[in-house]
């Protein structure tokens, strides 16, 4: 047996903007084992529920993560609304769905860019981020914020989108659709991309299931798992179908995301076509009393918010389980047996969001 050496990776490193630490045990160039250490961005925000009014806490729930921000606030609102028995008006549900799909588009484009950057494909990185700015323009025009929106509230939404703006959004998406398809073609067909990602970091369907993979990581291994199939918010009325790929390697995880960008464009178009009229919020009276598990499909996978309340204006317990946290065991499995130079690409394919995972 050859000598083993340990290479520390992180917390301050050029691959990700966020800190994570991995101890990579190497035999020559091959990774034998990866030991993750987390906790660099732990803030302890779940504890803040004891100090904040449950309605104000929506804004803090949104700041769990700056990328899936809107989805976090909606999931928290869903939990409170179920406890209090609030019927959210259909128009609010549809607009929430539209914003959630916009979040997904911007998150996936961001990820596609970062992956291209990790492969050394600078041009593709810039291209993906240029397209992402087009999505953020509409996000900013309708909510006022680029990455942190603050437009969801308990009982509905803060802002309505006028019908003519909805039409403009669809036109804008139609105009950038060919550009998105072009960028997807590069990920599907380009030799450089295939060479770096095909057959790398394989996670079989059984392993994905056993290790608790969620989101695009699970769907890239052929697991048909997507919380949107349960039809929360307005997904039930939009005819949603999960996208899966069978091989479980880095390329398939990448293709799931690039296809989901186009699927999100379709979902937004269908949501605008079916947009109901009516109020955008329901009056909230009293305080919540009870507990609920709310689930949602974030860009990174299944996310759970547990809320327990006892009839006071402060909530007793708020617990979040985020997709990155559940995807770390599959990541450790993927890393075993690959070469050191491939580590950045494989780490990125689970779309790690450390801000979410550590809160």
């Amino acid at each position: 047996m050859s000598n083993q050496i340990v290479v520390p990776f992180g917390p301050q490193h050029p691959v990700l903007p966020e800190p994570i630490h991995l101890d990579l045990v190497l035999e020559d160039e091959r990774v034998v084992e990866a030991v993750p250490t987390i906790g660099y961005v732990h803030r302890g925000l779940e504890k803040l529920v004891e100090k904040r009014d449950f309605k104000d806490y929506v804004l803090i729930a949104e700041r769990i993560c700056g990328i899936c921000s809107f989805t976090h606030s909606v999931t928290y609102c869903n939990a409170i609304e179920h406890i209090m028995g609030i019927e959210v008006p259909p128009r609010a549900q549809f607009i929430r769905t539209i914003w959630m799909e916009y979040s997904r588009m911007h998150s996936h484009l961001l990820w596609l860019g970062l992956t291209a950057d990790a492969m050394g494909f600078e041009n593709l990185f810039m291209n993906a981020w240029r397209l992402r700015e087009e999505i953020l323009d509409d996000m900013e025009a309708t909510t006022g914020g680029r990455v942190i929106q603050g437009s969801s509230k308990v009982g509905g939404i803060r802002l309505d989108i006028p019908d003519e703006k909805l039409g403009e959004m669809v036109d804008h998406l139609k105009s950038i659709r060919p550009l998105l398809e072009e960028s997807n073609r590069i990920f599907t067909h380009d030799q450089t991309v295939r060479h770096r990602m095909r057959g790398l970091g394989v996670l079989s369907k059984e392993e994905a299931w056993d290790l608790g993979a969620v989101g695009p990581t699970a769907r890239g291994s052929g697991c048909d798992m997507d919380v949107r199939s349960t039809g929360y918010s307005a997904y039930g009325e939009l005819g949603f179908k999960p996208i899966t790929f069978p091989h479980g390697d880095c390329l398939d995880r990448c293709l799931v995301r690039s296809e989901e960008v186009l699927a999100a464009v379709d979902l937004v178009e269908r949501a605008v076509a079916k947009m109901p009229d009516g109020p955008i919020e329901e009056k909230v009276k009293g305080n919540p009393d009870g507990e609920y598990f709310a689930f949602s499909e974030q860009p990174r996978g299944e996310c759970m918010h547990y809320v327990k309340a006892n009839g006071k204006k402060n909530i007793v317990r708020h617990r979040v389980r985020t997709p990155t946290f559940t995807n770390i065991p599959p990541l450790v499995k993927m890393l075993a047996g690959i070469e050191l130079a491939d580590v950045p690409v494989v780490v990125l394919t689970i779309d790690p969001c450390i801000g979410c995972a550590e809160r």
Partner: protein
Amino acid sequence: MSYITKSPWIIHYDGSSCNGCDIEVLACLTPLYDLERFGIVNTGNPKHADVFLVTGGINEQSREVVKNTYDQMPDPKVVVAIGICATTGGVFRECYNIMGGVDKVIPVDVYVPGCAARPESIIDGVVRALGILEEKRTKMTEKGGK
């Protein structure tokens, strides 16, 4: 204009940010905002960097990392605290694991408020930091001359 103001290199570290400011820092480097037109390059190595961008408040784990990164940077250097969390702790200031803004650990030259800080204000902050960097450099050369 000196060599530094023509091509300052930046390094970015996430103290305990929610990611919002981090991706806005990255967005500054991409085609729409394009910080590279000022000759600014994002580096991962503290020994190459002139400007230190920190996002998020400081917690127990990140305190040493921020301090180490700062100590490794060559003089003259400037620190830009990006986002309200890096400035004062922001919405998380009452969290048990947050010590407060970046200035609890290292000296900060420019504060860029906002949640999340917009790319325009980040660029503005960095450009201001370049002015301070130039001042520091002049002071250093004067001292060296004497």
